[in-house]
């Protein structure tokens, strides 16, 4: 589905991505793990074309996103759904308008059809009764759910989740994970989850990749990874301060 090939990116002499390469299979749920500041968010921005890498390529259906111009990129972006860290709901619009926004902008559906689709998706994330509220009136979990509804409402092929559970309580966390699982089961979509919540994503992922120092240092199915003897992976899993990764 999407392939990242030898991507390099540096900010002011600090290497963030250093030859990152991987491939994500169509229809799978892939989790990209890494410490905070390991370059996950930058990688996501590069994958959706918000940032240009210094070198390397992002392949999607035989096209290199890096070399496309904005108009071409926008044509491909239509197939993306993205759940940003804090939901990134538009402050000036209420929940319904937020969810309807991508439909209004990208499709020529009638208001009625849009309204029906929005209702569907709001119901799915359990926010049907909060449609008239503004983002500032919502809790963090509700914002993420609304963001999820907005990411999914266009029926994208490829959905990116940027830290879908950060800053949430355990119950809300598992609710979100269940929602991800549920929606994935309904439609054939490729999910890319960026997270550092390794235990959470273990249950829902088909494949897990670990990003460290700008490179993919380990990848495999969750059960393979949990069996791994690699000290770095083990440190990740246990969350121990001792190990190959040292935090100064």
């Amino acid at each position, binding site marked *: 589905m999407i392939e990242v090939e030898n991507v390099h990116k540096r900010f002011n002499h600090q290497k963030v991505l250093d030859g990152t390469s991987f491939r994500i299979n169509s229809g799978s749920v892939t989790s990209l793990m890494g410490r905070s500041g390991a370059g996950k968010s930058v990688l996501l*921005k590069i994958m*959706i074309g*918000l940032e240009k890498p210094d070198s390397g390529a992002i392949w999607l259906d035989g096209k290199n996103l890096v070399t496309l111009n*904005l108009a071409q990129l*926008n*044509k491909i*972006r*239509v197939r*993306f759904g*993205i759940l*940003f*860290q*804090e939901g*990134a*709901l*538009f*402050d*000036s619009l209420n929940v319904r308008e937020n969810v309807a*926004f*991508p439909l209004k*902008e*990208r499709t020529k559906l009638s208001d009625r059809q849009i309204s029906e689709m929005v209702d569907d998706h709001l119901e799915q994330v359990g926010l049907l009764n909060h449609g008239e509220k503004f983002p500032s009136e919502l809790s963090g979990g509700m914002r993420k759910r609304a963001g999820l509804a907005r990411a999914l409402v266009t029926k994208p092929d490829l959905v990116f989740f940027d830290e879908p559970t950060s800053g949430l309580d355990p119950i809300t966390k598992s609710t979100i994970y269940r929602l991800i699982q549920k929606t994935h089961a309904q439609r054939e979509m490729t999910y890319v989850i960026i997270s550092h919540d390794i235990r959470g994503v273990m249950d829902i992922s088909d494949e897990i990749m670990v990003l460290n120092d700008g490179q993919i240092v380990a990848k495999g199915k969750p059960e393979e990874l949990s069996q791994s003897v690699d000290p770095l992976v083990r440190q990740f899993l246990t969350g121990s301060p001792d190990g190959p990764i040292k935090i100064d």
Partner: protein
Amino acid sequence: MKALLMMSTEDNSLIKMALTVVSGFLSQLGGALIMTVMALKSFFWPPYRIREFLRHLDFIGSQSAFLIIITGAFTGMVTALQGYNGMHRYGAESLVGATVALALARELGPVLSALMVTGRVGSSMTAELGSMRNTQQIDALSSMAVDPIHYLVSPRMVASIITLPFLACIYGFSGMVGAYFVSTSYLDIDPGAFMSGIRNYVDISDITHGLIKAVVFGLIMSMVACYKGFYATGGSRGVGVATTKAVVISSVLILISDYVMTAIMF
């Protein structure tokens, strides 16, 4: 020898520092200008977001009107008092009307209303865009194939440019009303003399020049505010810093450009 080397490296670093400062300033200026051109150009491209545009017209115009009326009235009143103070000595009290009208039409109306709007609207534009940047709303727009400059910056800029001349008009008018009341009731100036002074001394060019100024101020204010907000980094503190800078920079630019325009036009 060693000292010499050190000196030369110090010199180098100084030059480098100066270069970074200058290039930083120039790249900001360039960035702001590019964004302005993009925003103004793309305003005329579809899709037309009329409601979004109306929202900004409302925020910048209608909702500022009260503030503008109040500040304008008091400005006019105090200008009348001060003008009377000076005119009285020469027995030219009838010129108070003309004085206030000219001051309001050419300088005070456009400049002070632009400064008021900068404080009220410019700051909120920067803060809004800055927080949208920091909560990834701008990224979200791009990722939905919506041009954030077209969606966010264009309506703000165009609304500012359109609205500010009108606000300057309202400012000037309410200032004149204030001056009229102070002059006729408190300073005992003949109402007829007040009005005929305006008629004789205010030229249509005074008003048009004031309006041209207001248009430029609207452009400057929205340009600085949008640019600072759009590229704000560093979380809520960054947004705060950007807001302060936007207000300071646009106020300073408004006053500088006022001088330049006055020097050119009169």
